[in-house]
């Protein structure tokens, strides 16, 4: 029983980490209707900047967030203005092809540049907090993961408040629901897209900090992560921010329980099987809206 409880706690904590990056991906897709295949690279870049700050200047990873947030928000804005704007304006098949080519190309470029400039070897940061021990040692909770989850919940609540209470948030939700309708009621959709990209990229970089704390990074981690986050937002429902959070937690729990009850080799298979089943039952995902 304690083993199951331990697995449940670990699964939720892992899912929280997944959710943060998936959240940014869902945001960009919801507003711009673009699958950003370079999303994982922004996560890697965020982690890399955090590593460089920590390794060379001794900056605490949580303090590094203060530098990373404006930096990557700006980078996201540049990304939208320089590369995505023309893609957003396209429609249908043309838009899909262009978005895949542009974002995949950018992903490969970032990976190569990072490899050339900072080397391809594995990089990790030492960060240690004593674990929280419950039930006379039978349940151990990772303090680092708990702290990460706490930050993620805080960020999620902040973004939720922003989306529900501010004009920008309401405009963003309106664009997510119906881009043309939003334009007709006077919302500057181009401006919203710009800010959504900034916010989404910033969230990816923040997720990168937590990723670095828990694992290690190298320039090629980006694309596989993007695919995993893509599964999460499809599972949760494309365009649904709450769905990406739930999708992340479901994926985290699935991976942890499969690794324990079956075999670590089955983790991804079971996760993808679950995705297929959900899509067969609810093609729009768990929290997505069905197409009229």
């Amino acid at each position: 029983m304690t083993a199951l409880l331990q697995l449940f706690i670990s699964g939720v904590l892992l899912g929280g980490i997944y959710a943060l990056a998936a959240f940014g991906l869902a945001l960009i897709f919801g507003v711009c209707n673009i699958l950003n295949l370079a999303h994982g690279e922004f996560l890697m870049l965020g982690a890399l900047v955090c590593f460089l700050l920590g390794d060379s200047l001794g900056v605490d990873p949580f303090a590094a967030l203060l530098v990373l947030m404006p930096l990557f928000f700006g980078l996201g804005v540049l990304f939208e203005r320089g590369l995505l704007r023309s893609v957003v304006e396209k429609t249908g098949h043309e838009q899909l092809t262009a978005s895949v080519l542009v974002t995949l190309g950018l992903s490969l470029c970032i990976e190569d540049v990072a490899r050339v400039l900072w080397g391809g070897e594995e990089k990790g940061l030492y960060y240690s907090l004593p674990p929280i021990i419950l039930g006379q040692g039978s349940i151990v909770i990772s303090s680092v993961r708990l702290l990460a989850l706490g930050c993620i919940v805080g960020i999620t609540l902040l973004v939720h408040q922003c989306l529900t209470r501010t004009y920008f948030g309401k405009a963003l939700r309106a664009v997510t629901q119906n881009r043309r309708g939003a334009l007709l009621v006077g919302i500057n959709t181009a401006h919203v897209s710009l800010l959504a990209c900034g916010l989404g990229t910033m969230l990816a970089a923040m997720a990168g900090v937590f990723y670095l704390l828990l694992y290690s990074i190298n320039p090629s981690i980006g694309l596989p992560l993007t695919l995993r986050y893509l599964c999460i937002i499809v599972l949760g429902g494309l365009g649904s921010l709450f769905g990406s959070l739930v999708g992340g937690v479901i994926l985290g729990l699935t991976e942890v329980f499969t690794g324990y009850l079956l075999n670590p080799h089955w983790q991804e298979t079971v996760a993808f099987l679950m995705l297929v089943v959900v899509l067969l039952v609810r093609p729009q995902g768990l929290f997505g809206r069905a197409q009229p």
Partner: protein
Amino acid sequence: MVGTCTAHWTLVTRGMAFIVGFLLLLGVGMGSAAEAPSEILIGATLPLSGRFTPMAGTFDRLCQSWAKLVNSRGGLYVKAYDKKLPVKFIIYDDKSEPAESAKFYERLVTVDKVHLLLGPFSSHITKAAVTVADKYKIPMVMAEANDATIFEQRYKYSVNQVDLADTESYGYLDLLHTEGQVKSIGFIAEDTLHSTGALRGGAKKARELGLKVVAEEIAPPDTKDFTAILLKLKQADPDVVYVEAFPGFEIPFMKQAYELGLKPREFFNGHIVDAVLKTLGPRAEGLTGVVYWAPGLPYSGADEFAAVLKDAGVDWARQMESSIHFQSFQVIQQAIEQAGSLDPEVLNKALHEATFRTLSGDIVHSEAGLGNTRSYPVQVQGGALKLIGPKELAVAPHMYPSVK
């Protein structure tokens, strides 16, 4: 008259014999000059991109620096031409993919016409590339490839330097056995040829030595969350947790082991490179591992190795397999000098029959091409790697238990 005539013919005959002899000598000399290549061409592929880049992406520089060192001394002496020939490497990026590597080795033999092949990085890639050597009967001096499945094929034109991956843990396990303090061990490996081979051999050897093997877990190389495995290991409670994997797997495993409170008496990491030590910080103290070379080993070529590393800008602590690559250079050099020829058959014979002096000890290749360099157990003590075995070479005692 007859005498004059005879004398005349004798002179003519001698003259002709002299001319024929001179021409023959000239011919042989000219023939040799024509046959002698301007340089010794060595072909290789390396993972200049892809997943193995962190481990060996700088080894092209290592090759060029060794060639530079050899060429600064005039090159390698080839008896058949009675002269020294400079060494030149032709290297392609295999993108860490076996099929790419095999494709480029074909090109190195058929288009670039190299004299000798230097193997790629890892058992995974070598398994595909080594077939080219046998196909074209061009010798390949393998580098970091020691999975048993390669040598089960009994290829005739390839040799490697290190013993089978299955034996990688032997030095460490023998040490534990001699000390007699460790009773149980739990193995975890990433699912790659090398690591699973090391796990297989290590678990077998541990049982032979009377240790209780309480776990043999294998996980995919891209595993990032180890909760399930760590929970199983916690329940099994081994004295030693033996992790055989590359850093991308080792680092998250070790981080999560500490986070989730796994407390064996000792941790062992198969690739105890700088990135692992740096990430684990003070917790790396006491960590054990194995290396195929360490500073202080009393064998041949350590100074040259240091010079090549310096010139190439390669840090051994970051890329420890660089010592195995250097061993391959030493084997190539001695094989060419002992064979005295660049003929593939003669070279291959020398590679299989000679004894090679290298920085990790003498190497003799088996009929299947397997080398005999064994790993040396090391431990992080005072922030540095210290050789803790075998007894006659150890520079520090094994600190056990080492997990605080």
